[in-house]
C-alpha cells in the first residue's frame, strides 16, 4: 500500500500531467541524448521541484513516500525525467534534513520552494575509485570566501542545473574521508566537460564528466559532516528514489504487455491467449517488486525520527539490498514484457515498444555497481548480528 499523505495524492496527480509532457518527448530525448527541457519546464509549472521543502519554508512538506510516488509516475512517461527528478530530490532531502539550522540554507530552502532551482550532485571524483565517501579535492577557505576545484567523473545534468551540491574534504589538511558538502550556485562556478555521455540508456540525463571550479561565500558549506548526511539521508534516499524510478519503468513495460495480451484476446473472444499466463507471471513479479520498495520506504520513514537508527549497519545493508533487488527486478520485468509484446515490442515504431525501457533498465545495475554493494554488505555483515 502506498498510503500517501493528502499532499502526496495531489502531487501524484500533478506528476501525471508532467508525465504526459515527458512521454511526448521521451523518444526524442532518448534518440538525441538531450536533456528533457519540456519536462523540466512542466515540473516547474506544476511546482514539483520544491515539494519536499517543509511548509515552514514555503514548501509542501511532502514525505519521502510522496516523492517516491512522483518518481514512479514520471518514470512511466520518461525514465530520464524520473531519474533527473529523483536526483534533484536527493539533494533537496540532504538540505532539508541536515542544513535547516544553517542561516544560509534556511534562506536557500525558501528560494527552493519559490524559484525552484534544479540542483545537481557532484559526489564522484577521478582517483577515488567510485567511493563517494572519499574526496581528493578540498574546500579552501580565505576569509569569507571558499574555492573548490573538483575533477568530477560524473555530474548528471550538470550543464542544465542551476546549482550543484559537491563533496570535498572539509579543509586542505583533512583526511580523504573527512568531507563536507558545498552548494555552489550558477554564477559562482564554471564547468569544463571532460567526457561525453553517449550511452545505452538514460541518455537524456546528460551525465558528463566535468572539471568544476567554484568560488562561493563560506556559508555555502553545510556544517553537518558529510559522513552523517551520507549515511542518514543521501544513501538511503538515493536507493529508495532510484528504485521508485525503476518501478515506474517496469510498470510502463507491464502496461504495454497487458495491452498486447488484451488485443490478442479480443481477436479470439472466449479463449485465453497463451501470452496471458506469461502476463500473470509478470504481474506477480511487479507486485513483489512494488511491495519490496514500499516496505523499505515505510521502514525508512519509521526510522527518520532517530538518526542513529538510520545510520545503523543493519539498515545500511537493508538499503543496499533494496537497490540490488530493484535493479535486478526492473531488467527482468522489462525483458519478460518484451517477450509478451513480441516483435511489436522490439520495434521502436509501435505503441507497445519496450526497447527504450529495456535499455534504460540496464542502467540500474551500474548506478553504483551491484558488485560494489555486495562487497560492502559482505564486510558489514561481519558485524551485524540480526536481520
Amino acid at each position: 500500500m502506498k498510503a500517501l499523505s493528502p499532499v502526496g495524492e495531489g502531487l501524484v496527480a500533478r506528476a501525471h500531467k508532467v508525465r504526459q509532457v515527458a512521454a511526448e518527448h521521451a523518444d526524442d530525448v532518448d534518440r538525441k541524448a538531450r536533456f528533457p527541457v519540456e519536462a523540466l519546464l512542466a515540473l516547474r509549472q506544476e511546482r514539483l521541484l520544491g515539494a519536499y521543502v517543509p511548509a515552514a519554508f514555503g514548501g509542501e512538506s511532502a514525505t519521502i513516500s510522496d516523492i517516491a510516488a512522483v518518481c514512479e509516475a514520471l518514470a512511466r512517461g520518461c525514465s530520464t525525467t524520473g531519474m533527473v527528478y529523483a536526483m534533484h530530490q536527493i539533494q533537496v532531502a540532504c538540505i532539508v534534513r541536515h542544513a535547516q539550522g544553517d542561516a544560509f540554507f534556511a534562506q536557500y530552502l525558501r528560494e527552493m520552494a519559490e524559484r525552484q532551482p534544479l540542483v545537481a550532485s557532484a559526489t564522484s571524483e577521478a582517483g577515488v575509485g567510485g567511493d563517494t565517501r572519499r574526496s581528493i579535492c578540498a574546500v579552501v577557505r580565505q576569509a569569507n570566501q571558499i574555492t573548490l576545484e573538483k575533477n568530477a567523473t560524473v555530474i548528471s545534468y550538470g550543464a542544465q542545473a542551476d546549482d550543484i551540491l559537491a563533496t570535498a574534504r572539509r579543509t586542505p589538511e583533512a583526511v580523504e574521508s573527512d568531507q563536507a558538502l558545498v552548494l555552489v550556485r550558477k554564477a559562482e562556478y564554471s564547468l569544463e566537460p571532460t567526457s561525453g555521455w553517449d550511452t545505452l540508456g538514460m541518455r537524456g540525463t546528460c551525465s558528463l564528466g566535468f572539471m568544476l571550479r567554484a568560488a562561493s561565500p563560506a556559508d555555502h558549506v553545510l556544517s553537518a559532516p558529510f559522513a552523517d548526511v551520507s549515511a542518514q539521508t543521501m544513501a538511503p534516499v538515493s536507493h529508495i528514489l532510484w528504485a521508485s524510478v525503476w518501478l515506474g519503468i517496469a510498470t510502463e513495460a507491464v502496461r504495454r504487455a497487458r495491452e498486447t495480451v488484451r488485443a490478442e484476446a479480443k481477436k479470439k473472444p472466449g479463449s485465453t491467449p497463451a501470452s496471458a499466463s506469461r502476463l500473470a507471471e509478470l504481474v506477480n513479479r511487479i507486485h513483489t517488486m512494488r511491495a519490496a520498495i514500499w516496505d523499505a520506504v515505510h521502514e525508512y520513514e519509521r526510522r527518520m525520527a532517530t538518526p542513529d537508527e538510520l545510520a545503523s549497519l543493519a539498515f545500511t545493508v537493508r538499503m543496499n539490498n533494496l537497490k540490488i533487488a530493484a535493479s535486478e527486478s526492473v531488467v527482468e520485468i522489462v525483458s519478460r514484457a518484451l517477450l509478451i509484446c513480441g516483435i511489436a515490442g522490439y520495434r521502436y515504431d509501435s505503441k507497445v515498444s519496450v526497447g527504450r525501457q529495456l535499455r534504460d533498465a540496464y542502467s540500474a545495475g551500474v548506478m553504483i555497481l551491484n558488485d560494489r554493494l555486495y562487497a560492502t554488505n559482505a564486510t558489514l555483515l561481519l558485524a551485524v548480528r540480526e536481520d
Partner: protein
Amino acid sequence: MNESIRAILKEHARLSADVDALADDADLYAAGLTSHATVTVMLALEEAFSLEFPDRMMRRRSFESIAAIRAAIEELKGERVAS
C-alpha cells in the same frame, strides 16, 4: 584499557594520523577511520575483550573516539556482570 584500545587501532584502524598522538577524545573519523575499518576494529575488540557488540551499539558514535570505545566496552562488561 586505553592502551589496549590504542594497540588495536594501530593494527586495524588504518588511520592516517599517528594513534599515539591522538587524545582520548579525538575524532577518529577525522583521523581517517572508515566504516569498513570500523568493522575490523570491532571484531578485534570483541576478540581482545571477549565480548559481543549488539546491533544497537553498531553505530558510528560508538567508535568515534578512544573514550567512546572505552565507554562502550565498559557498558558491555557491566551488562555481563549484571546478568
